[in-house]
């Protein structure tokens, strides 16, 4: 589904990704790990189409299309979802309103009829029940006054409503206590399907105890230096990132 070859990016004067290659097929769950500054979040933002980042080399193909040609909203409508590390607040804009607008934008793109208020609410309540979320969430401003945990759960709710083909979750576990983490993980697991691919960007191994990845990649200094299965994560936990950094520069 997602084919990244030799991707190089820059922001301002800094080069972050320096030739990253990655291949993700539908149904798979990939974990991207790495020390701070390695480029994990950059990768997530670049796939989503954030305009601050300049792509200086390489290609990204999504279901056969050149992804880099598309604007962020176009990528979204094609089924790419980014769960933000720091979801922004949009005061005065109702959570339900944003969701409905997003759902309908996608449906319109797919040539489907838009959902009306009733249908939307029905769907939303279903999903929230599945995720164990309080329906009152819908009436609040987008992320306005949400705790860290609530923000992350809101991201998962949006993912559940938008049913993406490729979901990239950027440090979904950061700042969460164990209960919140479990709830978020349960949500993500409920959304696993053979038609969907999920990329988990994470610094710590902990999340992977709850969401079992098919592949684990380690990002260091803008490149993937090692790939393996879930046991690689455990190894990193024990030995830290320095071990791999040495291996990479050696």
């Amino acid at each position, binding site marked *: 589904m997602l084919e990244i070859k030799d991707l190089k990016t820059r922001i301002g004067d800094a080069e972050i990704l320096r030739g990253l290659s990655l291949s993700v097929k539908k149904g798979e769950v990939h974990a991207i790990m790495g020390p701070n500054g390695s480029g994990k979040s950059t990768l997530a933002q670049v796939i*989503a*189409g*954030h*305009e*601050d980042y300049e792509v200086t080399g390489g290609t990204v193909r999504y279901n056969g299309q050149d992804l880099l040609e598309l*604007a*962020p*909203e176009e*990528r*979204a*409508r094609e089924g790419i*979802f*980014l769960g*933000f590390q720091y*979801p*922004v607040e*949009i*005061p*005065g*804009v*109702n959570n339900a*309103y*944003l*969701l409905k*607008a*997003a759902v309908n*934008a*996608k449906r319109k*793109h797919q040539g489907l009829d838009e959902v009306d208020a009733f249908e939307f609410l029905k769907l939303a309540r279903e999903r929230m029940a599945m995720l164990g979320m309080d329906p009152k969430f819908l009436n609040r*401003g*987008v992320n306005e006054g949400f705790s860290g945990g609530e923000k992350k759960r809101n991201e998962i709710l*949006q993912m559940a409503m*938008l049913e993406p083909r490729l979901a990239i979750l950027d440090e979904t576990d950061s700042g969460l206590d164990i209960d919140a983490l479990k709830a978020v993980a349960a949500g993500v697991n409920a959304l696993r399907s053979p038609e969907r691919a999920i990329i988990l960007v994470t610094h710590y191994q902990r999340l992977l105890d709850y969401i079992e990845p098919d592949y684990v990649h380690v990002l260091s200094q803008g490149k993937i230096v090692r790939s393996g299965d879930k046991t690689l994560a455990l190894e990193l936990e024990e030995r830290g990132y320095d071990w791999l950094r040495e291996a990479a520069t050696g």
Partner: protein
Amino acid sequence: MATESENIEHLVNRRYEHGFVTDIATDSLPPGLDEGVVRAISARKNEPQFMLEWRLQAYRQWLEMREPEWAHVHYPKIKYNEISYFSAPKSDEDRPKSLDEVDPKLLETYDKLGIPLHERARLAGVAVDAVFDSVSVATTFKKKLSEAGVIFCSFSEAVQEHPDLVRQYLGTVVPRRDNFFAALNAAVFSDGSFVYIPKGVRCPMELSTYFRINAANTGQFERTLIVADEGSHVSYLEGCTAPMRDENQLHAAVVELVALKDAEIKYSTVQNWYPGDENGVGGIYNFVTKRGDCRGANSKISWTQVETGSAITWKYPSCLLRGDNSVGEFYSVAVANNMQQADTGTKMIHIGRNTSSTIVSKGISAGRAENAYRGLVRVMPQAHGARNHTQCDSLLIGKQCGAHTFPYMEIKNPTARVEHEATTSKISADQLFYCRQRGISEEDAVNMIVNGFCKEVFKELPMEFAVEAQALLNVSLEGAVG
């Protein structure tokens, strides 16, 4: 793919949708202002002597006054002698008694303006007093209102039919000497609305008025007076549109509201005057004095406005909180784009005991516009227990515009509680990207965010206005953000 900052000054392509002129012969006075003009205006309207005297005194006072210069706006000097002070459509002679009698060309005008008078009036139950170039043309639903004892007619008619009421209240809230534009208005005002709600009556429908300026160089000098007697209740909507012209047009209106004991007046405005083109040419100069007198105990006056037009706006709807326990409210969204300039706000004067006021002002600046909030909260020494809360937020779109706040707080009573908060911000790149990543286009995202910013004010507007207001907001900011 262009970056946000490159798109930010993307040209406004929307054409002022109401930009056209109705081709009806008008019966106007030649430009210039002197005592003769004042007399001519009064004569054309067959006004009683007291009215003429009132106007003449105002004119003489105006001659001694100076135009204010302190507002944060810059404009070429107005040449008062080059404006015509009276314009009326030919079909003035026999005033139409029902819509059927109205000149069809006029009705067509209203259609184009999106005011299908009869449909709208019937469905929503709104009585419309449509003012066309200084003379009221249609007043519908008068019967229903008169059953309730409500008087809603043009100001000219009120002077004829209810002179005592007019004499009792005219100029008691905005005296002729109040300011330069109020004096001018008092001398040459042409028409406007008059509303009287009798004791204990809750006006059965929302009252509304539409304005329009047509002939070139014709100032629009409207005068409105609304009196809510004890225990009564009225909601009044004011919405304006104007055609595209090349010369600036002066609009100096005066609105006086009087709320007696236990009465409540809600005055809502959606203003869409022609703002000038992208280069600031043309556009209406809107200098308005609006004031509400909470004369009786427990009275309440609320001003709610959405202002998106005019080249220059100078406007401070105010409340005099005289009655004990009286309440004053001001909710405003003011948008300035391209080369518009606005210096607007409110004055809340606390005089009686236990009075309270709420001010929520949302200013949006885009293009090369300048938007200033100027507010005054004055608590007089005898205003025991006064309460005020002010929230003043500015949203900046683009690098060339300005947003300013000048709130004055003059507090002379120690039991007062006054709180003022103001913030300035922009639509952040993060917010835009978040929405876009959820599949929403940039334009829709901007509209969503701006509407969220103005939400607190929109929810105070009467239903039909709220919808028009949101659409108006979206249109006035088209292309402002990339």
